[in-house]
Every structure is written in C-alpha cells, then in structure tokens.
C-alpha cells in the first residue's frame, strides 16, 4: 500500500514536470545550427539524399559502430544465458500438429520476396527511407517466418556467425580506409560521390549500410535461433 502511494507521488511529480515542459514548449520555426549545417552540406559534400542516413552513417558513424556493438553484446548475452545450465538436445521429437499446407506454401513463396525487400531497403538507404537497421529487421523477419512455419528448423550457427563477423570486419575496415584515404574514420568519400540521386552515389554509404544491415540481420536471427532452440520446460 505504501509502495503504491510512493509510486503515485513519483508519477505525480513526473507529471508536473511534463506539464511544465509542455506548457513552456515553443515550437521552433527555424532549423537550429546543427540541423542547418546538415541540411546545407549533406547533398554537396556527401551526395546522400536521405539526411538521416547521412547523419547515422557518416557524421555520427562512430555512434553507429557503438550501437552495432551493443546489439552484438545483447545477442551474445542471450546466447550465453540460454546455454547456461540447460540440457540442450538437438533431435527433439516434440509432438506437434503439422502446420497447414497453406502456410507452408505461402511461406515458401514469401520468404524470397521478404529477403529481396530487405536487400532493397538497405541498398537504397541513401535515397529512400530505410537503411541497414530496417533492412536487418526485415531479413530477420524472413528467418522468423521460416521458424514459425517449421518450429524444428535449425539454422546453421556457423553461417550466421560467419556473416556477422565478416560484415563487422568490413564495416570497421571501410572505416579505417576512410581514415587513410579521406578525411577521417568512416568518411564515405573513399569512393566517388557520383551523380546525386543515382544508386551508385554517396560514396561508401550504400556499402557501409549494406554491411550494417547484414550484421543487424545476423544478430537478430541469432537471437531468434537461440530462443527457438531452448527446450520446452
């Protein structure tokens, strides 16, 4: 009872702060200095049409590296926690009703399309909304569809780990190349910026974002696989 009262008081205080914030909020009518810099310089300097992508991949590229690392840690920790102390048996013969024929056929039809769409999203990250993180999530969704159709399906852990490490290495490697050949770590101008609006433009942004997409997809897929392989308790 006392606990609930304390919670109530805390939320009341937070609500008062929020109300104050909302009351004093004046919507900006001009871009602030940072945003103005990005809006003016992205197209000329980097050649990317999607400014959000330019910020994530180039201007704040180091943060993205950190974020991908956080995801990697999360997926590794999930694998370790789940592996600890549980007897994992592979050839489990759970008695499951077969999934319907329609779902099986439908998933066979849709999985390649989902994969293709994921690839489209991260290859076109510098032109249309989307990019590595969204594309990675979509690719992991294709793996999810396979798992939902056939719960006993097992992905190759080696392949997932291989894709993940190679894309991570390429990501860091391109960053170091940027330091050697152009202005700094993860600078995209190691490749020609190309014609504005074309697929091969914006220097290394599509390359970097593709590998980020593959890495994020592999990480999410390994999370899903680790969860799906646990024994039913």
């Amino acid at each position: 009872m006392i606990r609930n009262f304390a919670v109530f008081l805390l939320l009341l205080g937070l609500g008062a702060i929020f109300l104050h914030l909302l009351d004093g909020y004046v919507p900006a009518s001009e871009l602030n200095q940072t945003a103005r810099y990005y809006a003016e310089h992205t197209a000329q300097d980097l050649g990317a049409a999607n400014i959000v992508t330019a910020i994530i991949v180039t201007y704040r590229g180091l943060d993205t590296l950190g974020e991908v690392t956080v995801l990697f840690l999360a997926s590794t920790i999930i694998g370790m926690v789940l592996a600890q102390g549980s007897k994992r048996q592979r050839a489990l013969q759970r008695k499951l009703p077969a999934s319907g024929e329609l779902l099986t056929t439908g998933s066979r039809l849709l999985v390649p399309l989902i994969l293709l769409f994921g690839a489209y999203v991260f290859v076109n990250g510098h032109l249309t909304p989307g990019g590595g993180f969204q594309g990675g999530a979509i690719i992991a969704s294709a793996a999810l569809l396979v798992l939902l159709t056939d719960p006993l399906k097992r992905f190759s852990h080696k392949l997932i780990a291989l894709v993940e490490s190679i894309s991570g290495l390429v990501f860091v490697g391109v960053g170091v190349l940027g330091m050697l050949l152009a202005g700094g770590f993860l600078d995209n101008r190691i490749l020609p910026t190309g014609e504005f609006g074309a697929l091969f433009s914006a220097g290394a942004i599509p390359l970097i974002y593709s590998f980020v997409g593959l890495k994020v997809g592999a990480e999410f897929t390994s999370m899903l696989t680790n969860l799906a392989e646990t024994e039913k308790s």
Partner: protein
Amino acid sequence: MSMVLIAIATLLTIAMIGAAWVTIRAKKVATAMLAAGLVSLFASVMFLFLAAPDVAMTEAAIGSGLTTFLFFFVLGRVRGGSDD
C-alpha cells in the same frame, strides 16, 4: 488539407491512450501484449505523420513481427500452453 492529417492524428492518439490503458489493465497477459503491439502500430503511423518516414519504417519492421513474436514465444514457454 493538413486538417485531414490532424483529425486522423487525434483519432490515433485517443486510440493509443486507450490501448495503453488496456495494456496496464487487461486481465490476461496475452491481451496486454496484443494491446502493446497496437500501441506500437499507432505510434508508427504517428511517426509518419510527424514527417519521420525512417523512424516509422523502423517501428513497423520491428514492432509488427519481431517484438510480437518474442513476447508470445516467451509467454507460451512459461505458461506451457495456451491457457493463462
């Protein structure tokens, strides 16, 4: 013209608060999870109306499949079946 968007946005926010209410008040955990998925869906459309298609796409790709699956998977595992 943007009247249309403001009207739909108001509708969405009301629905969002209602869904959040269902989330914290639902009798069954599965209903709460479903309502949380609904909050994510409405938030995604709201992001689009706030002129952030990148964020809307991320929320759509993650909220529609992966989050729902994770929640219901763990719920199914811990309860050992369909009944709450």
